[in-house]
């Protein structure tokens, strides 16, 4: 979104990191499947070993894809404060394991639980980030069309979904631009005076409806024009000029992910290292 002085690094949406790598060349469907599979794995077995193994996988993949550290949005200070408070209260809870420093008995159980869920969230975010940092937007919809093909047996309109997705991805940056202008226009207007809390509440609801109505009007216009453009092309059909299919590199990627998942599962199911 727009730059502001408090957050020097802004979030850049739907644009892969410039450059090419093996990870960039993976089929988009592979990346989506892997993220979904790992998501399920971590939800089923959110133990330390699976989290750390997947975390290592994320870091190694990011290295291979040559993703610089600058992709990460700056973490606002209040989030650090919040994390610190959470860690602090959790560590007061104590619990096993215990560590003795001199004569002081520190129960780390609470802190460890808090850390586990925090690291889990970070790993999941990083996993999702990897997909958007390395995938060209244009490859997503064809991959979804191919992945969803089995669903056609259930008579689900997968092709329509893929077309809607590719059009939505096309419309998204345009709408974001329009949002920017909308918010800027709102910033330029004088604020109505409001003395009491009741007046302030009224003003807020009015502003919200104003913004919403303007955004929806613009979106409807955009949609009408887009509908014309689709009609001019004779309706929906192909969405991609290039073939969308996995290659042997995807096989390798799947094998790696399978190995990591199997290792994590084995630890969780059969060894005393299990933490779930």
């Amino acid at each position, binding site marked *: 979104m727009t730059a502001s002085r408090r957050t020097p*690094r802004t979030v850049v949406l739907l644009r892969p990191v410039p450059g090419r790598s093996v990870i960039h060349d993976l089929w988009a469907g592979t990346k989506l499947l892997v993220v979904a599979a790992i998501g399920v794995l971590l939800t089923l077995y959110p133990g330390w070993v699976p989290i750390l193994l997947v975390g290592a996988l994320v870091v190694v993949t990011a290295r291979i894809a040559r993703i610089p550290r600058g992709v990460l949005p700056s973490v606002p200070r209040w989030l650090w404060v919040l994390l610190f408070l959470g860690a602090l209260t959790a560590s007061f809870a104590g619990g096993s394991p215990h560590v003795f420093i001199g004569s002081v008995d520190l129960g780390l159980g609470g802190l460890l639980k808090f850390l586990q869920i925090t690291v889990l969230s970070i790993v999941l975010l990083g996993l999702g980030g990897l997909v958007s940092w390395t995938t060209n937007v244009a490859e997503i919809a064809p991959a979804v069309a191919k992945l969803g093909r089995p669903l056609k047996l259930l008579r689900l309109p997968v092709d329509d979904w893929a*077309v809607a997705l590719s059009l939505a991805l096309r419309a998204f940056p345009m709408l974001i631009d329009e949002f920017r202008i909308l918010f800027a226009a709102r910033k330029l207007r004088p604020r109505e005076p409001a003395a009491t809390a009741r007046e302030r509440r009224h003003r807020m609801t009015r502003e919200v409806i104003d913004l919403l109505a303007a955004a929806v009007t613009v979106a409807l216009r955009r949609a009408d024009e887009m509908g014309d453009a689709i009609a001019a092309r004779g309706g929906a059909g192909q969405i991609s000029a290039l073939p969308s299919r996995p290659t042997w590199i995807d096989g390798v990627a799947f094998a790696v992910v399978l190995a990591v998942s199997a290792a994590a599962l084995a630890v969780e199911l059969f060894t005393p290292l299990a933490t779930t």
Partner: protein
Amino acid sequence: MHPAELAHAAVMAALCAATAIIAVVVPFAAGLSVLGTVPMGLLAYRHRFRVLVAATVAGGTIAFLIAGFGGLMTVFNCAYIGGLTGIVKRRGRGTPTIAVAAIVAGALFGVAGIGFLLVFYRIRHLIFESVTANVNGMAAVLSRISGLEDAAQRLRDDFGTVLTYWPLLIIASSILSIGSVTLIGWWALSRVIARLSGVPDVHKLDFADSPGPVGPVPAQLRDVRFRYDSADHDALGPVSLTIDVGEHVAVTGPNGSGKTTLMLVLSGRAPTSGTVERPGAVGLGKAGGTAVVLQHPESQVLGTRVADDVVFGLPPGTTTDVPRLLAEVGLDGLAERDTGGLSGGELQRLAVAAALAREPALLIADEVTSMVDQQGREGLISVLSGLTKNHRMSLVHITHYNDEAESADRIIDLTGNGGAADNVEMVSTAPAPTATSAHTRRGGSPLLELTGVGHQYGLGTPWASTALRDVDLVVNEGDGVLIHGLNGSGKSTLAWIMAGLLTPTQGTCLLDGEPVSEQVGAVAISFQAARLQLMRGRVDLEIASAAGLDYYDHSQIVDALAMVGLDPAIGLRRIDQLSGGQMRRVVLAGLLARSPRVLILDEPLAGLDAASQRGLLGLLSALRRDAGLTVVVISHDFSGLEELCPRTLHLRDGAVTPAPTRAEGVS
């Protein structure tokens, strides 16, 4: 699904995803996700259920790509609640129904949540243990404070009890949250639908899958008249004409003469009276049929990658020689490029390439150059005029530019045919004036001072791109400055910086010696998309709100309208019934009523016809001359701006250049 359904699903999905992403990514904005229910609700209200499902899949995928599982869940929730409110609204039910439905929906959602946590019990244990640790930690701290020992113990015990009955907790919180969000969403949707009742449906082309052989030309129109539903006069006709195989016909005429209506009839709309004879079906978008290129460059293009756009919509299995088509329209080697980075002219040429991929027998170009800059226009016209030579194709080129019509074999002038011909003048295009020094001082004291201004987007990220570098500019009181540049020259960034909406990453932009970014509102800016600046439903409410006037003091509003040459009676008009030129004037009325120090106009003439352009320029020139208004115009066009803006500043690739930029040649 039909084209209109697909388009609405896609745009509303993008809108919902954008809201959801902001709600997830931006701190403390979670409440915004409630607003994401409105686009989904609108979709459920206006379309079939499957459209809502498609939008959920599309929006969910986008939100997932950007904001991860949280984004996906937010879009899903918006669709769930929005769908509910939309369907109840469509059935014409009221608040009691939605209240009951909200409780049921909340309970169902809670049951689904319990099911999830039962299956994934390990994550449930982890979450519960982690929260318990936080609570116990807090209790441990409390128990150290004398007097609070009991409270600490109770906190620990009660929390444990609550967790034992977690399914109840989930159901209750689900009913509470889903219920309240549904009610807020219902309220917002009702308000928005009430506001939208005046939004015109601007869709033009009808989609018809007609059987039989395709053969749009030769087309013979006899005494064709066309009248839109609920209109009181004919928009076109009576008109008799023939479009032969392989000829290049230009259709001219002022706004309101029925040029676009003729396009509709040629592309398959049945006329109100008269006959249209063709050898076969119109075949809109079909191989050998009719192809249409429309006015708006951005909405024409449907693919995110150039090559994908060329083939978009072709029947599955068709093979297309994309490089050849791109070469023909002068976009060689751009197949892999992102369509988001193309200029208006390039986008329109891409639309021509997509039309050519269907090898149409008839190509209709409807005012394709009106939103394109001078250079883009020249390139586009040279592409169009070559078409009938290289293809067995008839070309109907609808235009309001004189010079564009001249390359045609034949010109059809619709003047006098239509009902509401109110403007018989054609726009002519002007050459670029030479740049004047950025520091020329004329008269007044310096007002806006830019020193070494540079701006970089995405600073510190791999996507960093420089939009502006080292711009020095002084705008004096009463000045008129034209900032001219092509797409991507950084002129809009400069406008945002001068209005204080962006803080430049280098240099300073001062208004009266203070950073302008600390005085947002002192410099007025009129954006190219005037509609985005109009937030109220009616003209008088809009002006009162934009100018900070008292709505009940009507004389001020009348004055504001008079200043921009609008009749006071327009005050009661709905915003969505205004023409493009009127919208721009209403925006100006709101801005000028606050007596801004500087007025910035971003592409003030784009999309206006000749008379509106001339009227607006006359108005602005008079304000500058008589009222001493300081004006900065951002434009890729020059025509008629000499009087308003005696000074010109050329921007190219983010830097000030002495000479105007020239168009690159187009094959």
